[in-house]
């Protein structure tokens, strides 16, 4: 990409220098929703820390709570229990005004690039909007910042005059990225940001995220159901199932030598574009059924109803969250440093 914005920031009339980048930490986070049918424990006791400048991948099936977790990380949902820490700030303990002030640093980009844009606003208006809400600069400086951000994400200036329906999915997602960039966030939650895009252009959008991280030191939480995407972009991966982490560790360790039977099954279910003779060496571990309702999660280990290695203990006792290998955590009674238990090893 040859169109680069001066490296300090896309808005040159900002209110002073932005603070040093800070990590994000979830501490025993729970998010419950009250429904007519009972309490949905969408996120139920999750702890992890995302280092400054890191890409933390969160993978899970639908119903695993990954989107709820993402919204909470971006400060859009209130924790029912536990808390989220932005650097030295504890989100739940901050006064409202302070929380509002911090919000610009913690952004989210959604899955559907079209739904995220107002169809009646031009692209330039949409990209300027965050700065208007923040009341930053005057109109001409906001326009300039928006144009620079569009340029940075690889869009021609005339795109700014168009409306969302005139753009392709990939272009619209670039617009959403540009809009986020105008406020120069420290942390971005990327919630299935390439899922709605054709495979042919996913690579270019993922490359853009990587460039922006290098350039601005942005920290990412990358939420996706796509194993190949998450393993390509992430430094570390957390595997979420029914509101709990099953496994967390460095990307290579999790994808090449998973500890949890669920991770192993998930990885083996990914269809690979390989010729028959090369695919046969890989054995598919079939997970029976589908993810149970979060209204009534199974007792003990939540994964046990689908786990090929489940035993009676799994129904009786919640597995401890432990560090089976250095930096590699797992919640399974029977996994050890050598890998997952019994029949699936």
């Amino acid at each position, binding site marked *: 990409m040859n169109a680069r914005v001066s490296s300090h920031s896309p808005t040159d009339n900002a209110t002073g220098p932005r603070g040093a980048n800070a990590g994000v930490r979830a501490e025993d986070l729970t998010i419950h929703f009250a429904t007519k049918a009972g309490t949905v424990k969408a996120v139920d006791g999750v702890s992890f820390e995302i280092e400054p400048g890191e890409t933390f991948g969160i993978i899970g*099936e*639908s119903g695993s709570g990954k989107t709820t977790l993402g919204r909470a990380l971006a400060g859009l949902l209130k924790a029912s229990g536990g808390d989220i820490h932005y650097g030295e700030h504890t989100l739940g303990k901050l006064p409202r005004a302070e929380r509002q002030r911090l919000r610009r640093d913690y952004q989210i980009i959604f899955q559907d690039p079209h739904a995220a844009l107002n169809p009646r606003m031009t692209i330039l208006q949409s990209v300027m909007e965050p700065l208007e809400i923040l009341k930053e600069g005057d109109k001409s400086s906001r326009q300039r910042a928006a144009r620079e951000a569009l340029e940075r994400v690889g869009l021609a200036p005339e795109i700014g005059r168009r409306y969302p329906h005139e753009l*392709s999915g*990939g272009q619209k997602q670039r617009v959403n990225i540009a809009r986020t960039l105008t406020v120069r966030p420290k942390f971005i939650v990327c919630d299935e940001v390439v899922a709605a895009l*054709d*495979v*042919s*252009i*996913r*690579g*270019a959008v*993922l*490359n853009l995220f*990587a460039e922006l991280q290098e350039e601005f030191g942005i920290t990412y939480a990358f939420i996706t*159901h*796509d*194993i*190949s*995407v998450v*393993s*390509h*972009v992430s430094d570390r991966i957390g595997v979420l199932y029914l509101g709990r982490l099953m496994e967390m560790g460095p*990307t*290579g360790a999790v994808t090449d030598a998973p500890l949890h039977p669920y991770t192993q*099954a*998930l990885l083996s*279910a*990914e*269809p*690979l*574009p*390989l*010729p*028959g*003779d*090369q*695919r046969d060496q890989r054995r*598919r571990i*079939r*997970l029976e059924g*589908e*993810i149970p309702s979060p209204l009534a999660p199974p007792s003990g280990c939540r994964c046990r109803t*689908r786990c090929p290695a489940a035993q009676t203990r799994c129904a009786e006792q919640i597995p401890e969250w432990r560090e089976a290998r250095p930096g590699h955590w797992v919640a399974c009674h029977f996994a050890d440093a050598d890998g997952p238990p019994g029949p699936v090893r």
Partner: protein
Amino acid sequence: MAQHNGGQPAPLLAVENLNISFTHPGGETAITRDVSFTVAPGERVGVVGESGCGKSVTGLALMGLLPKRTARVRGQIRFQDRDLASLPAREMRRLRGREISMIFQEPMSALDPVFTVGEQLTETLRAHEKISRKEARQRAIAALEEVGIPSPHTRIDEYPYQFSGGMRQRVMIAMALICRPKLVIADEPTTALDVTVQAQITDLLCEISETTGTALLFITHDLGVVAETCSRLLTMYAGQVVESAPVDDVLRRPRHPYSSGLLRSLPGLSERGSRLPSIPGRVPAPDRMPAGCRFQARCPHAIDGCEQPQPLLEIHGARLARCWRTDQLQLPGAVNE
């Protein structure tokens, strides 16, 4: 089975020069251009391409499901001994669901929410066969059992909303297969599902196709799914078939730059954290198709000569590619040879 030239079994489906267009107040817009391909009895053929390449429209045309008022379908769709493109609506209705059926991406919108699963399954059966209600119900229960729905005796009386996404897709498959059709068109049948459930559904489709001899036309954007389910791959681009070949051959050495580009775009094939390849630009709008190679504007191998119209060239080994440079190019596939 009828034989035709060369002792080859006659194809079950032979699409020839299928041109689909839509009329609108401003004129007529062509969506597909001279699409030709065959499906042998029991064969599983994958159709890939980006959105807007004409995959789904082709599938709907085969089913006779395009809106009569606006869609123009020219060319031939030979299915066994009939031409579906010119078949009267009444006869098409008799065929649809019995000999050729379709599985859609979104089972929740394809199933009727106000009827039980059993009512919808028996409706299909009783529309095509003279059987009693009781017998139809028995067949419907057996069909649900075949697709792996637990306790089919009770679930048959439930409504679609009472089923999970994966189970609903199983109901769709049961419905598509209940009359034992010779061809099933599956349009992105696993796209809305999680990978673990997707694996169950593709396994099920392969298993049923193998035991019943049903041919499958699998429309998808996922080359991994094609590799695991199909034996032959059609790549479509901008309303044309640009490559047709055995799946494993394409994965090793694609013969059209677009197939190669699609394969190379898969993140799983690149080294972790490296820059990912992608195909620049986008599919040209139907009313702005170039006269020559439709992929040339996005093709890294385009040279003088590519502005000429490209015929589908025959390459040895039952392969076809719409690229005059195909023999000059060593295009990378999914694996390094």
